[in-house]
């Protein structure tokens, strides 16, 4: 699978042959930092001063490199495909090797960063419960009406929300039975076959 670079991205990466191998390594490090922690304009300015190139070019270059790395890591392209994709940029073999090494060294880390970007549903945090029995009300005396009150605490993107629910014990038992059936699905042949194949 080949990576397709737009004209703008080719232009951004076009200045790389002008700087030396060590500088490319430095820019690669900046690109990975961009992915780890977000933009760092001061670091780009420092690199621009050291290499004697203007800040915008450095910025575009770092962004281009980080795009190259994220797309390659996302698609998990092989070494040969990576080399063929950057052939189109017309760099020297030495530079191509440097870029390939940069990709292979950082691939795993970039993939783990990308995996955290997927949208998340609210997840379980904790559950408080309470069992009450209603003995009488204004309209009717001498009753026995049990009720279970639940407070479900959920976590979503560091936000805590709580949902209050109330049910009678027989509905709760039915709910438990349904959830146990759902867990039991994992033990059927169909699920076992899929889990075996994934491992």
């Amino acid at each position, binding site marked *: 699978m080949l990576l397709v670079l737009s004209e703008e991205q080719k232009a951004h990466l076009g200045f790389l042959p002008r700087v030396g191998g060590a500088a490319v390594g430095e820019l690669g490090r900046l690109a990975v930092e961009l992915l780890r922690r977000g933009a760092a304009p001061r670091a780009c300015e420092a690199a621009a001063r050291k290499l004697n190139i203007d800040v915008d070019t450095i910025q575009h270059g770092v962004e281009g490199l980080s795009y190259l790395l994220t797309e390659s890591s996302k698609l998990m392209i092989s070494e040969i495909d990576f080399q063929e994709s950057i052939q189109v940029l017309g760099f020297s073999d030495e530079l191509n090797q440097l870029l390939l090494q940069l990709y292979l060294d950082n691939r795993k880390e970039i993939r783990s960063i990308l995996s955290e970007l997927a949208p998340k549903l609210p997840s379980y945090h904790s559950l408080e419960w309470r069992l009450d029995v209603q003995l*009488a009300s204004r309209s009717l005396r001498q009753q026995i009406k049990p009720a279970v009150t639940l407070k479900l605490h959920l976590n979503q993107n560091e936000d805590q929300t709580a949902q209050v629910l109330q049910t009678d014990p027989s509905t709760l038992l039915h709910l438990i039975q349904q959830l146990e059936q759902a867990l039991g699905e994992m033990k059927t042949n169909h699920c076992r076959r899929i889990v075996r194949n994934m491992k």
Partner: protein
Amino acid sequence: QRFRFCGDLDCPDWLLAEISTLAKISSVKLKLICAQVLRDLLGEAIEYEKILKLTSDAKLESGDVKATIAVLSFILSSAAKHNVDSESLSSELQQLGLPKEHASGLCRSYEEKQSSLQDRLKACSLRLSRLGSVCWRVDYTLSSSELQDVNEPLVHLTFNVQDGERGGTAAVPMTLSADKFRVLLAGEARGETLT
């Protein structure tokens, strides 16, 4: 095997695994650590440095110290939750492999604080909203634009309700005529006789 302090269920595996860690600490120091854990369960601040000093003789790693606190926290709160008396707790802990002096030290600390622990757990139970206070005022209407001689009493009530979900207090104001107020009081009196 079922244990009363676990709510008549099996003892959790992680608890069994950490009993040997508890046995490494001397029984005197264990009783002092229990006192610290009880402070945390009762809502006061736990003094972690004191616990570190007490466990330094047994040469426990930081993971083991945290495990010790977790185990003691579970045992004490679970025993209070299921209203287990201290002798039964002591014999069940010995069944799990805790030495006799350690178990009796732990249970003596538990016995001292059992009722305050249960009171605290009751206060922490799920409550949705709570009536904070009631403010009232009685007015007497002399006349109005509709009728010249009114001469009726009017009751203003404000219920301050504490929201259990989001915290904070909400005020619920209402105005009642004298008759409605009497109905409200009569209903309340009947409710009181039922409890």
